[in-house]
């Protein structure tokens, strides 16, 4: 390319708080990236990413070639899994995965045949002429996920069109101590990264590529600048001061743009999509080489490692194998940490495989990273507050979490905590603050789930109650109709039997007769019941009316949609109450009449 690339350097904005732990980067960033030999069996978890686990499309015994799809993405947020080498599927079963709890999850086991034989590949070289949707689909089919840590499926970021995107921000800060995978990748493969960035910019319809990098990686920055010039890619560079956690997505955006991602929002709300350098290299490989994400660069470092450095490792390689190949003295090691010392977790079982998000395996000696000491009480010194990059009050969150006061924890915005650990780092009382916050967050999640469950149960119960009420009312109405018809029939019969000579057939008389019959019918019906029974019935009707009234009042406040039905029910119940009253009265009348038989004859 002959056009001259414009590379501008931007001013950097402030980031509140942060800490300066020992960097220890030179331990691993002085040697080139080397490959870890293929293991005999690769273990490929179906969930190496954020979102739904992939769905296996192979069966045990099948032979696959390098790059073949083993499991496809399911649903909106998911990522496919590919064969890192050629071989035979030897099992699909639960295996221990890299997780804090040592939990097992479904994995595909691939026995390597040693041929490392690629499937047919279809590079898209003229990607500018291809429909954007097809390119995004290619990313999804290639199983590309964010390699900075969370493992968010990359295609989703490009599908999200709720706001126009102006800026692609390359996250090259790599602020965690010890980790140098991005540093080495930029030094050695800047072209791939920038070509990936160019594709990403095209997919987003963005106008600007910006690079956010810490000032402790001058060689990487030079390599990126030179590559940009070589490729004719315009880029704006922000060199931020080395400070943890400047590489957090939201923190880097604040440093580079001076803006904050709104609460509950995404970087795209600011017109920004942020991508880690490793992810961009994977985008390039997926589109231009048709190589799915089957290997990544991982830093293996720590004082218990003979040959600390950066290694290109096939996804699915057992961590034990990686450690053996890089000369780790497991006897000297105190623990194996996946990730960095600030946010990584100690692996309970190193037979777990390396996954797409494994940016570092840190194997420190006990002297290097001492075990936690017993903690002192919090003296509210406020050092944590000065260190918090998101402006929380960590000591207040600590008290709230410790006492499981979840309301107070929410009041202090616990869910905005990014768990960076800066507070725990500076704490003179050495309180494991992040653990308290994780506990409170978990409890809050549980509580919210319980609430949703309870809400669902309540709706279900109310629906059932309404249905039963409706059924009862219908039954009641039918019964009344039947009783009325029977009474009418009886009255008609009685009238016909009396055979009055001057009986006339006009409507008025008939109506009067019907009314009389009804009264007689009612009397007859109630005659079967004793006085006591009737009183009981009246009482019951009264309580029912009262209850219905109460229910109606509650419903008026809580579920307005229930009000009409309840009102209708209440009217019916009131009617019933009245008729019970009438029945009692007429029964009383009947008894009086029976006591005074003369009256009947006199009248």
């Amino acid at each position, binding site marked *: 390319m002959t056009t001259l690339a414009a590379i501008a350097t931007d001013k950097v904005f402030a980031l509140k708080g942060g800490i300066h732990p020992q960097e220890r980067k030179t331990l691993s960033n002085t040697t080139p990236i080397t490959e870890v030999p293929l293991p005999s069996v690769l273990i490929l978890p179906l969930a190496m990413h954020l979102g739904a686990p992939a769905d296996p499309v192979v069966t045990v015994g099948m032979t696959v070639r390098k790059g073949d799809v083993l499991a496809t993405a399911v649903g909106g947020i998911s990522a496919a899994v590919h064969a890192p080498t050629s071989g035979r599927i030897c099992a699909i079963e639960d295996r221990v995965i890299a997780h*804090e709890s*040592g939990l097992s999850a479904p994995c595909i086991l691939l026995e390597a045949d040693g041929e490392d034989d690629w499937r047919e590949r279809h590079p898209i070289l003229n990607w500018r002429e291809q429909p954007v949707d097809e390119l995004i689909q290619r990313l999804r089919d290639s199983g590309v996920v964010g390699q900075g840590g969370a493992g968010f499926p990359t295609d989703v970021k490009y599908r999200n069109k709720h706001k126009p995107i102006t800026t692609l921000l390359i996250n090259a800060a790599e602020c965690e101590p010890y980790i140098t995978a991005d540093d080495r990748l930029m030094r050695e493969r800047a072209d791939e990264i920038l070509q990936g960035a160019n594709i990403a910019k095209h997919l987003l319809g963005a106008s600007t590529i910006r690079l956010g990098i810490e000032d402790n990686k001058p060689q990487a920055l030079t390599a990126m600048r030179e590559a940009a010039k070589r490729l004719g890619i315009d880029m704006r560079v922000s060199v931020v001061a080395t400070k943890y956690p400047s590489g957090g997505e939201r923190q880097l955006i604040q440093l580079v743009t001076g803006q904050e991602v709104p609460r509950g929002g995404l970087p795209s709300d600011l017109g920004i999509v942020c991508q880690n350098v490793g992810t961009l290299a994977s985008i390039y490989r997926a589109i231009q080489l048709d190589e799915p994400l089957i290997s990544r660069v991982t830093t293996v470092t720590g004082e218990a490692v003979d040959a600390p450095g950066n290694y290109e490792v096939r996804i699915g390689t057992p961590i034990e194998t990686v450690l053996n190949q890089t000369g780790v003295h497991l006897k000297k090691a105190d623990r194996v940490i996946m990730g960095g010392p600030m946010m990584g977790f100690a692996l*309970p079982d190193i037979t777990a495989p390396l996954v797409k998000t494994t940016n570092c395996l840190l194997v420190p000696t006990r002297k290097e990273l001492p075990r936690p000491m017993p903690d002192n009480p919090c003296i*509210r010194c*406020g*050092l944590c507050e000065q260190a918090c990059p998101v402006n929380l009050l960590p000591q207040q969150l600590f008290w709230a979490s410790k006492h499981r006061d979840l309301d107070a924890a929410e009041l202090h915005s616990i869910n905005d905590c990014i768990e960076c650990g800066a507070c725990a780092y500076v704490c003179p009382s050495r309180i494991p603050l992040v653990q308290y916050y*994780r506990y409170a967050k978990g409890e809050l999640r549980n509580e919210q789930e319980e609430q949703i469950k309870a809400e669902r149960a309540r709706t279900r119960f109310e629906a059932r109650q309404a249905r039963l009420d409706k059924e009862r009312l219908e039954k009641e109405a039918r019964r009344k109709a039947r009783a009325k018809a029977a009474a009418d029939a009886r009255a008609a019969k009685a009238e016909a039997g009396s055979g009055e000579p001057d009986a006339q057939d006009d409507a008025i008389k008939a109506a009067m007769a019907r009314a009389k019959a009804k009264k007689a019918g009612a009397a007859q019906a109630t005659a079967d019941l004793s006085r006591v029974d009737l009183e009981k019935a009246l009482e019951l009707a009264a309580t029912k009316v009262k209850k219905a009234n109460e229910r109606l009042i509650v419903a008026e406040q809580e579920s307005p949609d229930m009000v009409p039905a309840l009102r209708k029910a209440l009217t019916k119940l009131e009617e019933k109450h009245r008729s019970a009253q009438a029945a009692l009265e007429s029964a009383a009348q009947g008894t009086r009449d029976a006591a005074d038989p003369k009256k009947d004859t006199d009248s």
Partner: protein
Amino acid sequence: MSGLNLTSPHVTGRLSVSWVMGWVLLTLVPGWIVLIVSFSVGYAINMVLALLTALLAEALLLAWRGRPVVFFLKDLSALVTAALLALALPPLAPWWLTVLGTMIAIVFAKQLFGGLGHNPFNPAMVAYALLLVSLPLYMTTRWASPDFTLSIADTLAVIFTGQTPIDGATGATPLDVYKLDISRLTSTEVLQSPVFGGWVAEGWDVANLAFLAGGAVLLWKRIITWHIPVSLLGGLGIMALLFSGDADVRTPIDLHLFAGATMLGAFFIATDPVSAATSNRGKLVYGLGIGVLIYLIRTWGNYPDAVAFAVLLMNFAAPLIDHYTRPRVYGHDKPVKGFKND
């Protein structure tokens, strides 16, 4: 290697509570030495008495409460409380006053509330206020005069045997003198008193500068932030500028800042984090409140120096201040205020 289940962060800084408390003790030393040299060796005797009493009381209470004694003694917080009290008490007070005060601070104001980190009030100030209210005679008349130095033997006799100090060896503090005398004399006449020798008030001014220097070290070490000292001195200063313009009527600003316990209070007492407000904005409100209250009590109240009462009153207010001064969290439009979430 073990299957150790440790979680992040795996690396922690080198700070510790004893480091923090150690620096506070260390930075108190210059002011302490100035007080001994300028006034009386009684300050040294008080210090020893208070430190020993504090250690003993803390150990007994910890043992009684079933807490690890050595672990908590090592945090040095009891010593800081004792040191602050020893610096605040009159140097020629009887020995039992110091011992009693320290016991009140450690037993009642600290351990009975739950020990380190759980006391709502500054323990040293609780003890000071209680002594001042209960034993005003000893607390106001046993200050050493700057230009009449008692020998060590006499000082020991005064403190331990109850011997009455020789006339002229004791007196009131400059703030006390000024407040009493200005009602009948002019400023110039009041300032004739020997307690106002030196630059502002002999001995007190240098001690205040020494405490200011100690506080600067704490700031530099980032053990305290600027918010409380600056807002406290600002509050007191503004009040003095507003109401003490006429030195013939009320105590002038230089005496307010350099003739009492102001610097000790601003950098060492009000900054006690346990009982102060937490957020930066909260600390500003808290410090300002103390500064204003110091002026109000000194000027219109019954007590010549008012740091203890001002600090205690604002201790009461600290939780409320915390609720209304939360910082705006990243990504939020505005801070969450009050007691209810939206």
